[in-house]
């Protein structure tokens, strides 16, 4: 795949060195091109890209609040439609908190109503903008500031909420998972999402150097480990048809992924085995 040269997210933004979110946004916008309007939920991305009087965005962009990005985008899409501008892409970038927790209602409504928009959840698996608090997308065992490990706790004690399947249950024409570490797979999915008539949802895993606890240089490496260990599975659901889009040649041990991050450092071997067997069960079912 040819990588489009033009950048639609300017440098100078305030993201941490090694930020995974901006990589995801850059790649998505390269596929969507200049005839695109972006909407952001409150969160890291919004704060780092629009410190008034500056903006990193090279395309029209709007932010209103944390939980309503999908509703704002519904209004944008409807207004464009009312003006006959149906060739303009409307893309939403919401973090995992803004998507799986506080923004779930607005997102569900937008998906059910069939607005022609692309919703990309950039998932770093906790509330990173406010300093690493757990969200519904925080995985089992992760230590965050509101699910800390301690004498009585091994960290987050519930599995990650299955957002893409919740979206799939809405019957929208396109749902996919992706990772910034597999850019071709991700960009193909963005292209498909733009081409379908109706709502599309992409759940993009995006390692976070600050929240996960690893050296900034390792952002892509961590995303790759998630996929190569089967901890994050790349698939798409096109018109209801489920397809795994990437299969590791030889699945690595989950502990390799867990041990590379500070948020899992406290886990005992027993807990790591539990996570491994959970991953195994899913991967066996999907023949990964």
């Amino acid at each position, binding site marked *: 795949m040819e990588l489009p040269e033009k950048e639609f997210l300017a440098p100078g933004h305030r993201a941490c060195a090694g930020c995974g979110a901006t990589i995801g946004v850059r790649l998505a916008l390269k596929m969507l091109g200049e005839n695109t309007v972006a909407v952001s939920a409150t969160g890291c991305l919004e704060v780092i890209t629009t410190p*008034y*009087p500056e*903006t990193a965005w090279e395309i*029209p962009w709007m*932010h*209103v609040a944390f939980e309503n990005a999908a509703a704002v985008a519904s*209004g944008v899409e*409807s207004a464009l439609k*009312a003006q006959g501008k149906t060739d303009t892409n409307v893309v939403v970038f919401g973090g995992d908190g803004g998507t799986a927790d506080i923004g779930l209602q607005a997102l569900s*409504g937008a998906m059910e109503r069939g607005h022609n928009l692309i919703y990309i959840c950039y998932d770093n698996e906790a509330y990173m903008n406010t300093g690493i608090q757990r969200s519904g997308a925080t995985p089992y065992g992760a230590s965050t500031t509101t699910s800390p490990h301690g004498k009585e706790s091994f960290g987050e004690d519930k599995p990650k909420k299955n957002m893409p399947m919740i979206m799939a249950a809405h019957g929208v024409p396109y749902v996919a998972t992706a990772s910034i570490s597999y850019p071709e797979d991700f960009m193909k999915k963005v292209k498909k999402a733009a081409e379908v008539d109706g709502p599309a949802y992409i759940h993009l895993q995006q390692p976070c150097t600050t929240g996960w606890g690893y050296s900034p240089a390792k952002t892509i490496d961590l995303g790759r480990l998630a996929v190569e260990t089967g901890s994050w599975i790349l698939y798409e659901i096109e018109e209801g048809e489920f397809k795994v889009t990437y299969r590791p040649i030889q699945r690595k041990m989950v502990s390799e992924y867990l041990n590379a991050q500070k948020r899992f450092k406290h886990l005992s071997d027993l807990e790591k085995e539990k996570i491994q067997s959970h991953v195994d069960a899913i991967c066996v079912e999907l023949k990964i």
Partner: protein
Amino acid sequence: MVLKVMSSNQAIAEAVKLAKPKVIPVYPITPQTTISEYLAKYVADGDINAEYIRVESEHSAISACLGASGTGVRVFTATSSQGLALMHEIIFAAAGLRAPIVMADANRALSAPLSIWNDQQDSISERDSGWMQIYAENGQEALDSVLMSYKVSENKEVLLPTMVCVDGFILTHTVDPVDVPDEEEVDKFLPDYNPEHAYLDPKRPMSIGTFTDPDYYMEARHDMEVAMEKAKAVISDVSQEFADTFGRKYDFIEKYRSEDADTILIAMGSICSTIKDVVDELREQGEKVGLVRVRVFRPFPVEEIYDAIKGASNVGVIDKNFSFSIGGVLHNNIKSMMDVNAAGFIVGLGGRDIKPSHIKEIVEKTNNPSDKPQWIGLNKEEQ
């Protein structure tokens, strides 16, 4: 002129049809619901060429309004009570982003206990949001106010949203004769919305809803206060233009037999029709009583109210809302902004009926004022 008999909710829907918004995100709630139904039907019949978004909540209704307004089109929504409270966060954002949204509020009490009936606590509680607020007395005024509000809100000197408030059930579900203006005349009065400050257009990329640090936030809020002040002149001009075109003149306040009055009552909304009847009755008995109806509550018309009441010996302010430990909000706004002794009265909460006898009681108590705001119409054992 052909008068048609309709409820205030239908009158508002007729105004929306004439204002031609491009996007209408709306969520039903008693007693606003028939507005959302009329508009759905108008869109279904092709009488309004707009995208009607069946949102899943009021929060999303106002959010979608803001997204659409940011895209540069005229929008409308309507709500009430709990719905307005759910919108609260985005109500402030809409004003801050300077989106000239016009929204109708069917005034209803806030829970708990749950009540579907009228008072004005819901919209009064949004008074500090940066929205202009109009309180209509009848269906005709509701219709006319929606049309004028778009013109004021979209004025480049203003760019603030407007809430047109109508008393739930008392206006929303009772019918009155209403003159529906001619479409061509409205088109001339209210041309298309073409914003220069907010548009999501890939040919001219801009970022709306940025993050400000302490170097900028205070100025942004101050600019809104300046715009609210400037709105006063714009409201006057628009009212005059409306009067010249349609023959109905609306001021910030309406003075009813108040010019030579010794006792003046001040109130907002439909209660003023009852007060006018009582004023007429008392005048026949030789009592010099008058009414000042506050129509525009934000921007707050300090000079207009003061000029109207400064000659009176006794002033009584009637509120269908209250702020704990302080009393009615209109009452307190008046006391804080002008040098008058005004007695305060709280009435009609949660749909409690306000009878002419209550108004007479208020006149009596205004003439013999006590220091504390008084609740009128409470059940006897509570007094």
